[in-house]
């Protein structure tokens, strides 16, 4: 650490260059942070999916409904602990662009199935009492400034509106939070009994079933048993683990991972060149000085170390600031992008990965100039500018 002062004054000799180089690294890691947040938005569901939960849907496609009676039949299959039905309501709040997920459920079964949705006990009580009651996620509440007691009017192009009404009326009885950072709280859940009684089309149909199994290791086996139960019926099913179902859905949007990797490689390659070039220049300018250092007894290894330290300091300052700002902005902007990306944050794992990249960048960018400095011969270095 005693050479830190030397490294620092070397950085200060061309302030502008040091600042510009640091800023380009800063921008690169800001971008890295954002891309990780976008990736997290697409994959959060997969990482947080319940390991002991299956999803059962119509084999032909998710848009086909299943009969309500399936709930009981699935419940009787050995290894199955609980079953909870959900449906896609596709509600529209004033305008299609205000889209948020709205899903009819049976409150008690639903909350028992998904302990990651936290509802205060009093509000759960209220939900059981109010027939057209709905609970909404924290993100959704923030997005439209909904609060408990508000009424939300929705129309549903899929199911139609209740007889004689122009829209469905829901009363907000509770606001749920997520148990973990990545839990999606951008949606609304309301009571199935109210929905089924009032919908003009498709009474008695359920969109899909969530199934809790006793032993997570048996998911493939039990999924097969469920599918066998309904084989050769007019409504065959497709059961799979929740993670597989969500991964499949995200994958349909596109291979987000590959696209992000391509962009990041382009960014890192560019930045590496820029930083490497700046470092190279900094070393070339100091040839004479390095010669002096060696003349007064600095070893080759020590010179190598000094140059590497210099490039690592630049990378660390720029990179960590960039990652930090990305993390902070994702936290602050999360609510703004909720309509497109319900979950938006930089996962801790990616922050660590980013910090690792920062170090690698500092080392790789500094290594060539450092080797060059190490190999300098004292006599030549001192003569060069004479």
């Amino acid at each position, binding site marked *: 650490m005693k050479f830190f002062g030397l490294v620092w004054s070397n950085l200060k000799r061309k302030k502008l260059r040091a600042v510009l180089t640091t800023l380009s690294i800063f921008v690169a890691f*800001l971008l890295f942070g954002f891309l990780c947040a976008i990736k997290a938005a697409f994959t959060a569901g997969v990482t947080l999916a319940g390991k002991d939960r299956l999803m059962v849907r119509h084999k032909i496609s998710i848009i086909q409904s299943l009969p309500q009676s399936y709930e009981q039949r699935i419940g009787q299959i050995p290894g199955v602990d609980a079953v909870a039905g959900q449906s896609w309501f596709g509600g*529209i709040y004033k305008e299609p662009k205000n889209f948020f997920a709205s899903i009819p459920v049976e409150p008690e079964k639903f909350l028992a199935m998904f302990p990651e949705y936290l509802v205060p006990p009093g509000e759960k009580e209220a939900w059981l009492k109010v027939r057209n009651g709905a609970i909404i996620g924290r993100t959704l509440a923030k997005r439209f400034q909904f609060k408990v007691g508000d009424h939300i009017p929705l129309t549903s192009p899929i199911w139609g509106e209740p007889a004689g009404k122009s829209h469905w009326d829901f009363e907000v009885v509770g606001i749920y939070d997520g148990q973990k950072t990545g839990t999606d709280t951008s949606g609304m859940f309301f009571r199935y009994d109210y929905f089924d009684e009032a919908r003009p089309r498709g009474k008695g149909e359920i969109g899909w079933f969530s199934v809790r199994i006793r032993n997570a290791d048996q998911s493939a086996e039990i999924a097969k048993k469920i599918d066998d139960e309904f084989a050769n019926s007019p409504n065959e099913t497709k059961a799979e683990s929740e993670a597989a179902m969500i991964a499949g859905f995200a994958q349909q949007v596109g291979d987000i991972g590959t696209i992000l990797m391509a*962009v990041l490689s382009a960014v890192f390659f560019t930045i590496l060149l820029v930083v490497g070039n700046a470092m190279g220049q900094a070393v070339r300018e100091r040839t004479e000085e390095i010669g002096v250092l060696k003349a007064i007894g600095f070893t080759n290894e020590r010179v190598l170390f000094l140059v590497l330290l210099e490039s690592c300091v630049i990378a660390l300052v720029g990179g960590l600031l960039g990652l930090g700002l990305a993390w902070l902005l994702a936290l602050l902007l999360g609510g703004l992008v909720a309509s497109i990306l319900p979950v938006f944050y930089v996962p801790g794992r990616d922050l660590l990965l980013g910090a690792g990249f920062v170090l690698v960048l500092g080392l790789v960018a500094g290594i060539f100039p450092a080797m060059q400095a190490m190999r300098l011969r004292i006599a030549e270095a001192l003569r060069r*500018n004479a």
Partner: protein
Amino acid sequence: MRDFMNWLSQIFSVAFFNLRTIPERKGAAVTAAIGIAGVVAVLVSVLAIAEGFRRALTVSGSPDVAIVLRSGADSEMTSGFSRDETRMIADAPGIARNAQGPLASAELFVIIDLPKRSTGMSANVPLRGIEAQAFDVRGNVAMVQGRRFERGKNEIIVGVGAARAFGGLDLDREIRVGQNTWRIVGIFTAGGGVAESEIWSDAAVLQPAYNRNDNYQSVTARLHSAAAFQEFKDALTANPQLTVKVARLSDFFAEQSTFTTDFITKIGVFIAALMALGALFAALNTMYNAVAARTREIATLRALGFGSIPVVISVLAESFALALAGGAFGALAAYFVFNGYTATTMNAQTFSQVTFAFAVTPRLLVLAIVWAAVLGLIGGLFPAIRAARLSIASGLRET
């Protein structure tokens, strides 16, 4: 006038002199150019995705084809008509006719699960039940393999995009969907439009297979002319027996693409803007260094009597030239790597897969060059001002 000519010739000679010395600063110059090339390549490729998706949806409809949905429906998925209603719509004024009757096709739209060829994971593929007139209604459907399906049979034809993207969709093979087995008898193109992502069958066969009784979801009709649209629309909306929403097919698809294209465009511009900022710092760095390396040269020029404006312009010219070279390289790289690259994604409105080709259009190439030029000018401006402000005496003394 002579002064002006003299001034102009100063500018040219200094700028040319400057450009000729670029090879001496190869490393730094190439770095700056590559930085800008990277930005431009990323910008162009991301926007090419949005452009390709938009194009796939918008070339689908000509202005003289209209689609009718139930009022309140936001896509075919949520629409529905009885047979009587579809007949009433087909009889409306404005629809073109041929020997078989009005050019209108009542259609069903469902999605089925098929595995993607690339990953083996299941995806939502649109399956459309059509009536016989559908081919003449659309007018751009051509069979590239096999033949059209026969009416009343469990036969399907597959768009080229779907055939390429999803497993099992090969000519003469059979696929099983629920209780039904369908034979693939043909592969078709539809002018690059969204229909190429679909599977088509006879609506009358699809109805019982999906418990749709005698129901349809939309009616697509060819009009006498694009101008007949208003007449057609007015007649339908005025009919008290119908509650419908009428749109030109082109507008309908344009609207469907908005969400996805907006999303991709916003993310693309955001990423490119951040990258541009990074590249700008790199360019500034390079140009400052270039000016610093040439301090003595510039001071000598000034001492010989060259003005400060020619010096400024010479520095700008250098950074501009580097940026344009980088930008052109990045744009061309994006063009050769990505133009025509096919991918599939989900259409947010219908939950179903659309196959499309990335489109690096001339507009995007121009945009790329503009970004590069702006980056080059800003990156050169401040160093140029510094060069002009150099004191001649101390500049000459510099080692």
